């Protein structure tokens, strides 16, 4: 036909809209850019945007619709691991293609998914290493604080195992979960304060979504300073800090594979494009356009998909999957990001940033170069035997 349909599956309403809306716009921006350059194989891309409304079952339903009804060639979407998990069976059954742009807990490797966000070893482990180091403050006690769902649970399970391997005792690890949307962190912050009396403490926050704002506000007002108890977050980026007064938070940390403050020609270009796009489309918040890690991952994803389609000369799922292996892209984070030949994850550099008063991040530590993803964390029992590539035929349709 004359166009290639591309599915965009991000929540535009509900709790996750906060984070996901910009990803939808990032996809649309990239599509506009690609179309302006002549499209893919001479065909224009046609975005099909749907709103799964932060409702996990609706994610599955909308996926069925995108693949079955609209026959999209590829879907860019999901933020939370929950949503990905509910989409996964559909994508596998209908042999679709999903690009997932957010850091996650690993423990998954589907032939039909490309993971352009970080695996635990590309984010969580280095962050903890840093906090343990002298430069990071030499933390001895750990509060693992997260939203109660699969990503924080699994990440913390990995971290606990990792910390143990580094000689941290169980009593020095406090694991705490709050539900999605939790908004009153008085008690938690008081507990952290109390816990920190027992020795140099760091907090690893895997709080996702809305809750971050009240958490950080409480942190700031309760006078828990970064130099006393640093908090490193894995799901807090520039966008999430938009809603927070960052002055009391200076020095708290985040670990990502991209920060807006990174200086590289590709990033300057990226920010410029985004600002221009946001202004042109009058997107909300365009007076202060922000970029963040999942946006970068989205951007890399769609561009690599384009390259792969052109290489495969087809949008056929299996052909594109084959062509994705080893694709490279000049990423805004300043490296040449490569899709692993086998495991469907990107090679990424890891950055640790400290919050600045203006809501941006100072990069205080980074890996010397890109790190290969280990979706099967070695700190989880039995993972050593798992192959580092999707196993064919996990989906039911093909087993029986």
């Amino acid at each position, binding site marked *: 036909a004359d166009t290639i349909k591309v599915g965009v599956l991000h929540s*535009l*309403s509900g709790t996750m809209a906060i984070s996901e809306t910009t990803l939808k716009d990032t996809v649309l921006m990239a599509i506009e850019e690609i179309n302006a350059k002549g499209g893919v194989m001479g065909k224009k891309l046609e975005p*099909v*945007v*749907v*709103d*799964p*409304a932060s*409702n*996990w*079952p*609706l994610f*599955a*339903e*909308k996926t*069925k*619709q995108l693949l*079955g*009804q609209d026959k999209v060639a590829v879907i860019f979407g999901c933020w939370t*691991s*929950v949503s990905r*998990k*509910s989409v*996964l*069976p*559909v994508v596998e*059954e209908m042999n679709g293609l999903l690009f997932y742009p957010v850091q996650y807990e690993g*423990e*998954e490797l589907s032939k039909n998914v490309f993971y352009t966000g970080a695996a635990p070893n590309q984010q969580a482990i280095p962050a903890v290493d840093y906090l343990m180091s002298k430069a990071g403050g030499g933390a001895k006690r750990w509060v693992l604080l997260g*939203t*109660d*769902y*699969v990503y924080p*649970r*699994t990440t913390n*399970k990995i971290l606990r195992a990792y910390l143990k391997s580094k000689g941290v005792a169980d009593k020095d690890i406090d694991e705490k*979960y709050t*539900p*999605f949307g939790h908004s009153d962190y008085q008690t938690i912050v008081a507990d952290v304060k109390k816990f920190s009396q027992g020795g140099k403490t760091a907090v690893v926050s895997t709080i996702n979504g809305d809750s971050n704002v009240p958490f950080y506000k409480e942190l700031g007002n309760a006078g828990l300073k970064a130099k006393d108890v640093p908090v490193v977050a894995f799901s807090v980026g520039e966008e999430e800090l938009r809603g927070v007064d960052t002055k009391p938070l200076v020095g708290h940390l985040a670990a990502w594979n991209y920060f807006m403050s990174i200086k590289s020609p590709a990033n300057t270009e990226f920010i410029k494009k985004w600002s221009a796009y946001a202004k042109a489309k009058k997107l909300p918040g365009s007076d202060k356009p922000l970029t963040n890690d999942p946006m970068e991952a989205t951007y890399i994803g769609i561009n690599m998909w384009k390259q792969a389609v052109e290489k495969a000369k087809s949008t056929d799922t299996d052909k594109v999957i084959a062509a994705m292996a080893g694709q490279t892209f000049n990423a805004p984070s300043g490296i040449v990001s490569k899709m692993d030949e086998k495991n469907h994850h990107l090679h990424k550099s890891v950055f640790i940033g400290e919050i600045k008063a203006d809501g941006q991040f100072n990069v205080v530590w980074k890996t010397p170069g890109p790190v290969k993803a280990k979706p099967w964390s070695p700190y989880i029992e*039995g993972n050593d035997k798992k192959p580092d590539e999707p196993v064919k035929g*996990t*989906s*039911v*349709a093909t*087993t*029986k």
Partner: protein
Amino acid sequence: MTTNAPMIPAVLLPAKGPLLTRAGWSTFMMALIAVCAVAPMLNLWVPEGSLFHMSTYAVALLGKIMCYAICALAMDLIWGYTGILSLGHGVFFALGGYVMGMYLMRQIGHDGNYKSDLPDFMVFLDWKTLPWHWTFSDSFIATLFLIVLVPGVVAFVFGYFAFRSRIKGVYFSIITQAMTFAAMLLFFRNETGFGGNNGFTDFKRILNIPLATPSMRMTLFVITGLTLLGFFLFAKWLVSSKFGRVLQAIRDAETRVMFSGYNPLGYKLTIWVISAVMCGVAGALYVPQVGIINPGEMSPASSIEIAIWAAVGGRASLIGPIVGAFIVNGAKSWLTVAYPEFWLYFLGALFIGVTLFLPDGVVGLVKKFRKGSEK
């Protein structure tokens, strides 16, 4: 008690009508045929690409909406006819769904991510054995019983205490909301043992037959349709019996009902449990078709939505809530695609419009038209 007057003047008492009118029966039969014959044909035999082909997506969507319609029907019994607004029916739906979901999880066997005996989420929680409440989850027969039993017993216990204490009106509504909210939080906790926020997904088989095949999907679709139609007849029979009229009397003047010698507790409790069980069954049918169940179904908003389906279609009319479920969910499915950024305006306007202009719901409008044309 007889008065002395021997002559009893001829008073025309209204005769008890049939369960459905003739037109009602024929519509019912048409629905039956549509569900059992037409839909399977269009989906399975008409080739894809044909104008008349019914897509898999459509089957899934309609199947889902039929489950919702059962909930709306259940809501109508308790709200429309008995005047008790439950803002917690989502709990019963979810409980039915979870019972079914547990069975489906067990059916995954070793095909999960971790290739373990246990469901995946138990693996990441480091659990080694199945918790007690999973005991019967591997038996399909037990599952069928539990689908009825679990929502039924929960509803019975909750209802018994609430109705016994004469909790009424908004007080009842609000504590049902508290109930569903508490249940949601409980199920959100991973430690509770129901998969936390993720809930259950990635189902593979039912009765060892793969779920993701067109014929299986169609089978579930047909079963759901038959259940809906069956519940409709059952509800119709209930409300046209004296039992149904007592319910309406409770709605209008509960004290009068008591002083007439009826104990409202039994009546309320009966209809409450029936309504809950219907929701539970709907939930159980929903899960294999939609492929996921999570505590979101217990959120207060989900329960409110059930009430909204009933209201949009028209309360106290049985067919109304079914129509309402189709209209609201159909509109939602269509609008989220057609106007992803604006659909909430349309949906919100629909709710406002219905309340302002159609106090008896969409069905009320149809009735009005019909009356108008008869004149």
